[in-house]
């Protein structure tokens, strides 16, 4: 393939996937929309933010940017799982091994092996490398480790590989927790202070924004590299290995090399994500090896669609925002962990039951149902609070547009009114009456949004079908009642 063809293909991909471009543009423009930096304001979007900001729906700007950085980190991690498991078919249930290990390697290389000199009395060798180099370094070490794992994994296939990889991080975690290794690994509690990659200025706004820009940049670069790999000849070979190993081998593909290569690439980016996560949380602890971490990215990839690098990123953004912004405000912190896991499990089961290939390759009516259900829910949760009659106090084009949009949404959701009222009653009864939560204005909106989503998405799915049945019943040819329509 020559370069001209390559760029032509790339341009075709870009043309086909306009929503990538819009998503990237949205991510880049978000700080300016949220008012974190003084770029030229976009009037229409600031208006929406003013509506949201009155209620403080997303918390402070800094909080929202922090969450978005977290989304970016999860996005890298999910995409790295997808290139190994979605493309090559080597299902790994223990990707957290690279994630957790990278966190530790980042600490070791940027600080040293000693944990607490006052307690242990051992001052280990110090490296004092810069955290940025440590990040790359941990990526490469993870890739090396993945080569070893990959060589071992050549012997086991399919579900057995999944079992082995499920167990490997647990071994590592239990080794890291042993008292014998306390000076190296920090035992049960791990390392408390992982040095930050960016110089801390002390100004919270600047720090948050810097970390946001850094993480988004890393996300774009690494996902770009992974997409280049996935759309190149390597990606084709990976897919052929996934579909049929024997056929691939009979075509002269070196199975061992490509499998190990997929492991190495995947582990490199997982390592970078792990190092960034450790810097985000400022800790490196054995719980980074948890199976929950490995499964969170699987859930993200399943929701976004396995076998498309972007699917994992989309899933990561959706899930992280749902967990951190939606559920984090509704439920008290004492049961939040359980609620998060419950949401993960239910989403995974429902997604695999109704759309096994994720959002990316769902049936058109399912996609429409998800989009419209969420739109209904947003409209119904925000419209009563936004007081949108106020838009007419100042007459200009934007305000009239906004007003018309709100009116249209309200009209379109009229059939949903009984469903939403009943679901709101039931849901609030469960949350407030049975679980005993006290909801303030902000969490009430979010709780209502959640309830409307749960009720609205099935509703938006079945409503057109009911309409179709009714239409056919009274005006169509089925079920053989009504007017006969010649072709």
């Amino acid at each position: 393939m020559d370069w001209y063809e390559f760029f032509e293909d790339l341009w075709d991909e870009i043309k086909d996937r306009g929503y990538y471009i819009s998503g990237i543009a949205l991510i880049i423009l978000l700080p300016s929309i949220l008012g974190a930096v003084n770029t030229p304001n976009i009037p229409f979007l600031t208006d929406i933010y003013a509506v949201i900001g009155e209620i403080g729906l997303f918390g402070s700007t800094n909080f929202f940017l922090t969450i978005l950085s977290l989304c970016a980190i999860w996005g890298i991690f999910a995409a790295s799982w997808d290139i190994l498991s979605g493309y090559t078919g080597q299902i790994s249930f223990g990707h957290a091994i690279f994630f957790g290990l990278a966190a530790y390697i980042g600490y070791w290389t940027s600080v040293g092996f000693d944990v607490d000199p006052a307690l242990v009395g051992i001052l280990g060798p110090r490296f004092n490398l810069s955290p940025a180099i440590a990040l790359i370094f941990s990526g490469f070490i993870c890739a090396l480790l993945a080569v070893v794992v990959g060589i071992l994994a050549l012997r086991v296939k399919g579900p057995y590989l999944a079992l082995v990889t499920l167990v490997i991080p647990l071994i590592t975690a239990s080794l890291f927790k042993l008292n014998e290794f306390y000076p190296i690994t920090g035992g049960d509690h791990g390392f408390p202070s992982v040095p930050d990659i960016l110089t801390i200025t002390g100004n919270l706004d600047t720090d948050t924004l810097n970390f946001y820009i850094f993480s988004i940049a890393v996300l774009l670069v690494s996902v770009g590299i992974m997409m280049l790999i996935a759309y190149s000849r390597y990606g084709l070979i990976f897919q052929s290995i996934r579909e049929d190993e024997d056929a691939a081998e009979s075509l002269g593909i070196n199975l061992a090399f490509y499998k190990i290569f997929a492991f190495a690439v995947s582990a490199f980016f997982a390592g970078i994500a792990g190092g960034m996560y450790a810097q985000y949380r400022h800790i490196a602890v054995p719980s980074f090896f948890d199976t929950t971490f490995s499964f969170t990215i699987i859930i993200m990839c399943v929701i976004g669609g396995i076998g498309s690098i972007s699917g994992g990123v989309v899933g990561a953004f959706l899930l992280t925002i749902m967990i951190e912004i939606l559920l984090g405000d509704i439920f008290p912190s004492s049961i939040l962990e359980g609620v998060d896991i419950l949401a993960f499990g239910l989403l995974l089961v429902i997604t695999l039951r109704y759309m096994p290939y994720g959002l990316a390759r769902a049936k058109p009516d399912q996609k429409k149902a998800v989009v419209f259900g969420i739109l209904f829910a947003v409209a119904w949760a925000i419209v009563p609070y936004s007081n949108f009659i106020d838009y007419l106090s100042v007459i200009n084009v934007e305000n009239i547009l906004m007003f018309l949009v709100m009116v249209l949404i309200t009209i379109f959701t009229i059939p949903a009114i009984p469903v939403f009222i009943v679901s709101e009653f039931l849901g609030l009864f469960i949350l407030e009456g049975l679980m005993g939560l006290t909801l303030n204005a902000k969490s009430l909106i979010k709780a209502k949004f959640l309830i409307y989503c749960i009720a609205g998405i099935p509703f938006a799915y079945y409503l057109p079908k009911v309409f179709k049945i009714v239409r056919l019943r009274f005006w169509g040819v089925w079920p053989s009642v009504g007017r006969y329509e010649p072709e």
Partner: protein
Amino acid sequence: MSFLDKVIPPDIWQKEKWIILGLLGFFIFCVSFPFIFQNTDSGIGILLDLESGIKLNIFAIQTGSLYALLAIGFSLIYGVAKQLKLSLGGYFVLGAYCQFFLLETVEIVPEFRTDFDGLMFLGLALLPIVLIIVLLVFTYTIFSIREFIFILVAPIISGGGIIAIDGNLVAGFYVGLAALIIGLTGWYLELPKREIALGSFFYALSMPILYIIGFPSIYFSLMLLSVVFTACVAMISDRYLLDTVRHSHISVMIVTFALALIFQSIVQIVYFPQNGDNFTRFQSIDWSFPGIVPKTGITTFLGISIPTIRIISLIFSLIAVILLYIFIYRTKFGIALRAVSQDEEAAALVGVNIRKTTALVSGVGMGLAGFAAVLTSSFSARPLWNPFMGWPVLIWAIAVVTLGGMGSLGGSIIAAFIIGYSEILVSSINPSYSVAIPFLIVILVMILKPEGLFGEKKEVE
């Protein structure tokens, strides 16, 4: 044909000679090790001691039998339905907490009566009523009116008897419910009506009589109920969640893992609202086989003192394994089950209902996990009572099954005892290393001999 040929068929002896010899040597070493070597202050020394040897052996056999219960279920499901169900740990949690919930409902644990909040109240007040209505409607629709009355007699006798003797309404209700479920299970297994009637009546009459004698029949019924509940949840989830992804190993694994997460998080939300605070409260209560065995009870036999709970658990798990053997090798359903595991299409041609068989197998396997949970819940040390206790269980089961060979029942039983022995022996030397054993075994076996000790070498579809 000599006796030895019956125990080890000649063809297997020819094929697996070294494995059998090695296993024999391993077990002889394991049995004799605790008698000879003792853990003294200066490391391990040679010191003959009968008592600790017998004690360690009993511990090891009991641990091994528990692992066998877990692993048989896992292996059976893999053999018949060709599914690797990672939800084993989830059903373990479900069984344990279901029993806890029932005990709480019957007001056996008085400490908990004061502090139940919303969801608990819903469960305590509404669950019995809903259960009654659902079961009555269900039984009425599947049976004719004569059979309906006939099925209802056993619950009324047993439950009414318990209420008349003890006066505890809820306990009577649950004992009656267990009788009803015995009848329904018999119907589901397509037993003849005469046998259903016999089983139900035997149960119905024995429960009040045994209660008078002193056998804790209420707790026995609760145990039965929680096991059956676990099995039912497994069967329902198998039917409604796994149908669309049945033929993809990976999707099945992901869905079942999600199920385990769901059960775990429900337990976490309902029973552990404050982080860390309540994790200890389950350990401080003596509710293991309440009435007969206090948690700290010790049986002294021939001068050797052993915790009673371990002996009881050993007996129960042996009974379960024997019942399972009878179920698989002596009943009609067992024949169907083995037929499906050998060749699914051929079995379907002969008229075996594949979906029903696979659902039933997942019910039996996960019911065994629930049973193991009910038994294990009586130990003080190992399953620390928390919602996450399912994961170690899953890892142990995976270790046992990979060692014994996927889908091979005898292999998993032997492997369970290997792992039980090695765990107990290592932990008698240094407890902190006993955690790493199953992991090492899984990895080594997977890499050196991926089909396990007794597994068939099969291509994964």
